[in-house]
């Protein structure tokens, strides 16, 4: 009873849970323009998951897996949503049509019969025992429809493990708010990014969840290991006070989803500013022909390096008005960082240690 009154009062006064606040980009997350300053990368249609195949970087691009030399390594029947490679060369490919296929290192299809259909996979990686660890973003929305899943405020995602050999699928955790990045830690626990709640959790034995990093000023996605012993976290879209506010307005949200085309929603996106039909916020009005780089935006480019204790060490940004937005994955190969930017449809590469400190 008191709880209900408190929440009603909060709602009226805009306090507590109704307060619209967004964590600041500060400290190691202080904005810079590193990504925007990079030379042109490799053009792609819809670059997604970066992996290492035969020592060279490769990424998903639509239904293809493309390597950095430009060759198409693999093609499956639908756009790829997640990709992972085992040490022995086995490749796991999850596609938009709900098919999770396994290929051996000679690209032969060795997909077993899965005990459960792993639909809407957003991220995959291999565990130490050779099993696939994967995230299912949402029960109802496929990974291309992630803004809809956010606007519906779903928490129907789950994390599972699949045995390549037997086809057995085990559920590790359920009811998650769009898990979208997964990597196994040295102690065999699993680090998962839970996008809609902007935090990273570690799944311990017995499905024990520990939040290891929260208050991320964006929606965390792909995770990968850094060569220095930490992790690279790709933040695929920024949090924005207006969007947070819309998330607290069920009436407007449902009408918007019903009547407005999805690309023009008040919702985060991989890229923005393409059409004048997109929503615009007050701070993003150009003054004297200039768009302020700190103006509110629906899209942003951000990749963060975490240390072994998941503390952000430094970050690389593409700010409002930039193009290299929507970083969907990052891969560190011997100190060279490869990035996929969905906003710019580009695969970028640079040496982070030469970019200087971003703090």
């Amino acid at each position, binding site marked *: 009873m008191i709880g209900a009154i408190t929440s009603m009062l909060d709602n009226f006064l*805009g306090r507590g849970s*109704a*307060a*619209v606040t967004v964590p600041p980009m500060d400290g190691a997350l202080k904005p810079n323009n590193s990504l925007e300053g990079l030379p042109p990368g490799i053009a792609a249609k819809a670059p997604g998951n970066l992996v290492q195949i035969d020592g060279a970087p490769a990424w998903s691009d639509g239904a293809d897996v493309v390597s950095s030399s430009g060759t198409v390594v693999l093609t499956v029947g639908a756009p790829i949503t997640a990709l992972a490679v085992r040490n022995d060369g086995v490749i796991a490919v999850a596609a938009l049509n709900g098919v999770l296929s396994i290929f051996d290192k000679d690209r032969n299809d060795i997909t077993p019969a899965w005990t459960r259909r792993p639909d809407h996979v957003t991220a995959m990686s291999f565990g130490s025992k050779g099993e696939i660890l994967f995230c299912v973003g949402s029960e109802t929305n496929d990974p291309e429809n992630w803004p809809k899943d956010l606007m519906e405020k779903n928490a129907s995602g789950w994390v599972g493990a699949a045995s390549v050999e037997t086809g057995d699928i085990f559920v590790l955790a359920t009811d998650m708010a769009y898990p979208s990045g997964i990597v196994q830690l040295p102690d065999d626990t699993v680090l998962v990014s839970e996008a809609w709640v902007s935090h990273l959790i570690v799944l311990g034995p017995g499905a024990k969840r520990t939040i290891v990093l929260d208050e991320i000023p964006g929606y965390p996605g792909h995770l990968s290991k850094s060569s220095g012993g930490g992790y690279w976290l790709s933040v695929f879209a920024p949090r*924005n*006070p*207006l969007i947070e*506010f819309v998330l607290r*307005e069920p*009436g*407007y949200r449902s*009408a*918007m989803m019903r*009547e*407005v*085309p999805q690309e*023009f*929603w*008040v919702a985060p996106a991989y890229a923005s500013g393409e059409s*004048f*039909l*997109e*929503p*615009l*916020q*007050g*701070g*993003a*009005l*150009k*003054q*004297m*022909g200039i*768009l302020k780089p700190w*103006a*509110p935006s629906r899209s942003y480019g951000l990749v963060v390096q975490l240390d072994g204790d998941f503390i952000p060490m430094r970050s690389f940004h593409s700010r409002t008005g930039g193009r290299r937005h929507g970083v969907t994955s990052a891969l560190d190969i011997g100190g060279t960082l490869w990035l996929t930017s969905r906003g710019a449809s580009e695969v970028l590469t640079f040496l982070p240690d030469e970019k200087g400190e971003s703090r």
Partner: protein
Amino acid sequence: MSVANTITKLRYRYLPDHMIGEILSKNWIDNAIPFLVMVAVVGVFGTLLPNFFSGSNMEILGRQYGEFALVVIAMMVVIVVGGIDLSVGSNFALGNFAMLYFLNLAELPTGVSALLVILICGGVGLINGLLIGYMRLRAFLTTLVTLIIVRAVVDMLLLEYAQQMSMSFYSSPLWDTMGMGGFGPLPFSFAVLVVVAVLGHIAITRSRPGWRALAIGGSRRSAYNIGLPVRRIVCSAYVLSGMLVGAAGVLYAARLSGAGTDTGMGMEIAALTAAILGGNSLGGGRGSVAKALIGAVTVLVLTNGVLRLGLNSGSGPMVLGLTLLAAVFIDVRWLKNRGKLLSKVYVSPTLMEMPQPRSTEDGPLAVNDRLSDVEVIALGKVESPEDVILDENDYLYSGSRHGDIIRYAPPNYTEHEVYAHIGGSPLGMAFDKDGNLLVCVGGMGLYRVDKDRNVTKVTDETNRSTFSVVDDSRLRLADDLDIAPDGKIYFSEATIRYEMHDWPVDALESRGNGRIICHDPKTGKTHTEIRNLVFPNGVCTSHDGQSILFAESWGCRVNRYWIAGPNKGKLEVLIDRLPGYPDNINRASDGTYWVAIMGMRSPALDLALRMPGFRRRMARRIAPDQWLYPNLNIGCVVRFNDKGEILESLWDRKAANHPMITSMREHKGWLYLGGITNNRIGRVRLKGMDDSWSGWSSYWGKKTGGQA
């Protein structure tokens, strides 16, 4: 669902939410809480006490009130200048004693005695004033000392004369009237109070000394710095206070005809409580007679009520003390939070159902790149050229946000100079028949720059609407103008609720906050022609001179208003369902019109316009920078004809070369572009338009014939 819809519509049509913000921005709203407290106190004691509202009780109370309220006004006068007067109680006792002494022992006439008493008490005030105003002693300590000394003097005098005074009994018709009579139903003291209150109110709100006193209370140092005679005014406030207390003492003497040691005991606390309870700020600078009167009623009813309820002897002061505490608390909280509350509730969105926009995919409004090769003029040299205009000699003029009119020299417009400095934010411009430049200036009004570059004000006010809370006679955001063939100037005021720098916030409200105003140079009169328009913006006289066309920006439509001919006074929609927000309208050489589209609609905002509650909460919960806004980063130029048919549009798809367009002017085959958030002016060559046509000749008849 449809019933609910109808109710929502009716609610936003008839409930004037926006008035809450406007009322909160008025000064008199400070009295709201004190007034409610007064009503509550009167209500409670009125029901608790039998015969409270009876005539005899009212008369007794009225008589007491006359005396007490005078003392409270005295207290208010010193509080307003940032001081305090604790000596009112003993000064009151002195006045009472002196009056009785003069009548009974000195045997002076009533009038002379009263005058002397007022002078004596004023003298006490003068001592306070000299010490505090000129010697710069602390008001609290000084008046505390006066309180003690004057009380001691009164006690000594009583010891000396009380015996003699009680032996004699003075009586005269005037004295009896003062004590027991009055004017009709009004007790004498109450009538005195009414006169003092009216005079005091006028003095404080409408006279120089009153304003100066308020200024000194608000900030003594600033008042000193601007050259106000701080010391003299502070001193005279205490003198005035003393005189008012003296008058109250006279009235008290007339009512009770007795002097005792307890006369005026604790009166300083009661008066202070009343003054603060009424809403006079203890820090100074904020006070009025009305506040003092309200506070006096509350305290008088409270103290009398407690007495008559027969509570314990200590309970009277106890109630008074607690009330004072509450009053100080409310005073502090109100001062601190009023501005915050106002900023939260001022934005008051209303229901606006936007029709489906015309297509920008195909048809005459289809997006193209015809503006992508705009020639840029004065890049980085001009800021906020909202409107541009050219004269017959091809000179180009624009405003700037620094308040200048800037003139660019033909043919390349690389040279420019400040043509005139007006101040404010120059917006729409037009040349009259004699070649004078008329300019709408945001924040100032309508101005004229003549050929010798002299700036004169044409008008800055119109008639006030009957039921407006805020004074809407002053022009806040004069936007664009045009001149009718008869010389009358029609201009738009985009919104009466926002200042120049906040103009896009008006889109969040989308209420009819704007108006079309007409100024007649022949009579010098200005009057409002059409009210309740949704951000009326560009104004243009039609080619036949029979009507004016004006844009309603947030309504995404262009209207026609007939100013002559059979349809005179009729208002009709010429173009609706525009995909963006129309701004300035100007004539084209072929008998059509150009209209600038300053920004584009987005479906998310159109939806929000249907949901005023959503927008209201948005305005309260998130920072203005984060609000959902109209997209003013891209626009286009559209040409239409007198039938309201759209003929063509000119776009810059990337909005790179010329980001935003608020106005355009055709001149000799070129189209010149202005934009309020731009740091440049653009021009583009027109194909198939008359190369000798100029705006001025189109209006004022003289054919140019290439004399440029």
